[in-house]
């Protein structure tokens, strides 16, 4: 009774394996040569806009990882002002800073990957924070992930 059923299951398992041996789907993005196009509102590395900042320091206060700190910066023709800087050694990409900024001075970019040679290099003081995350050193082929009924995820060149 048991044995024939087991043999059937063995054959089914082998056939399923064989099916995937000839089937097409693959779920690999050849990162970094290829990179995904990220959806709108993706919580990447935030970018700072100095003009809009009101120095309220809410971003630094809500930051759960203490990654954002307020730096005192000399501004021409004005008094000293406090601007946020970010330490990417600590950032956990929760996006609270962007969401709480009442002036819209912080916004998400779609860049989430940045490599550096030193830890100090990952500390972005207000100046660099305003420049935004450094662009990738080479241009990857961009692909857009699309959910698909047949293969699950399709990466469409875009």
């Amino acid at each position, binding site marked *: 009774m048991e044995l024939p059923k087991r043999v059937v299951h063995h054959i089914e398992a*082998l056939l399923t*394996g*064989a099916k*995937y*041996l000839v089937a097409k789907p*693959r*779920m*690999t993005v050849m990162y970094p040569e290829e990179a995904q196009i990220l959806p709108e509102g993706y919580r990447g590395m935030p970018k700072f806009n100095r003009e809009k900042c009101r120095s309220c320091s809410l971003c630094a206060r809500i930051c759960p990882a203490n990654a954002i700190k307020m730096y005192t910066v000399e501004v021409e023709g004005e008094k000293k002002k406090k601007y946020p800087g970010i330490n990417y050694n600590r950032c956990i990409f929760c996006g609270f800073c962007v969401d709480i900024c009442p002036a819209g001075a912080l916004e998400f970019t779609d860049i989430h990957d940045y490599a550096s040679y030193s830890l100090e290099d990952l500390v972005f003081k207000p100046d660099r924070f305003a420049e935004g995350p450094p662009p990738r050193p080479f241009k990857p082929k961009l692909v857009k992930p699309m959910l698909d009924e047949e293969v699950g995820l399709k990466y469409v060149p875009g």
Partner: protein
Amino acid sequence: MQVSEIISWLINLLFYKPEVFCPIFYPGLVTILALLIFIIWLERKIAAKVQLRYGPLYVTRKAGGILQLLADLLRYMFQEPIIPKTVDKIAFIAGPVLLFATAYVPAALLPATAEFTGLRSELSLLAVLALLTLAPIFDIIIGWGSNNKFSLIGSMREGYIVMSYEIPMFLSTLAIAMVYGSLNIVEIVEMQSRCWGILLNPIAAATFLLVALISTARFPFEIAEAETEIVMGPYTEYSGILYGLLMGASYVKFYVLSMLFALLFLGGWHPSITWLEKIHPAAPGLVVFIKALIIMVFGIFLRAVYPRFRVDQAIRVGWHLLFMLSMLSIAYSLAVIWLVG
């Protein structure tokens, strides 16, 4: 004059003397090394394909990463083989070398074609089998010599498994030898020109195939080195070229068993392609190689399908299923002899 004579003598010795050609080129060492590189690459590729991945790719990208294993081999060659202080040095170093050697030696005795064979003997099948049973002893020795609990457990498992598969292996080969009434591989193959062994005794063929899987630790019988249980079993302490030899040994053994399967059950070099002989006397033997390759591809494909059995379950397969099957195959052979004569 002298020099060219020496060269032609050398060429003659190396390429046209079966006693030298068989062990060194085909089906011996050179074939084995090339196959090792290819088959491990193929194993990774097949597993990757089933698993929605690409597998090795970046070394020779255009050829699908086929040279990846060459790169790995080079790495193993030049990596420092770490020899821990606590191990038994002689066993630790000699073990892998002897294991690889004993896995390889039977290959040297396999015939390439009917005329072209390294060992001419009425008992060549027996010799190959006897040599095949040597390798596991060194598995146990290195596990013991490693002085590591995981290694020890791994080699104990190997020991248990050997117990369970060796008798079916002998019995199933005996069954096919009985049908053809010979222990000479060449004779057995020659007699298969009319009817393949797998048709004459399918039970023996099935048993032998399963035994080949168990004895070379293919899935689902990858038990002695079960990674999530006992790290790498007997091979836990190994690194560098010594580890390379150990890893290679099981594939070599699998190659030998597949060749043997092709010879005993799949008609060997039949249907023979005679025009190949013009290129080289051993060339018709490629038919055997291709048959063996198919068996090997099936064996490595199983990695993508199966989890691994527990050691007691594998032993149960050995004693309850394979032992019974091998006894049956003997009975079947007797029946065939009685019926066909």
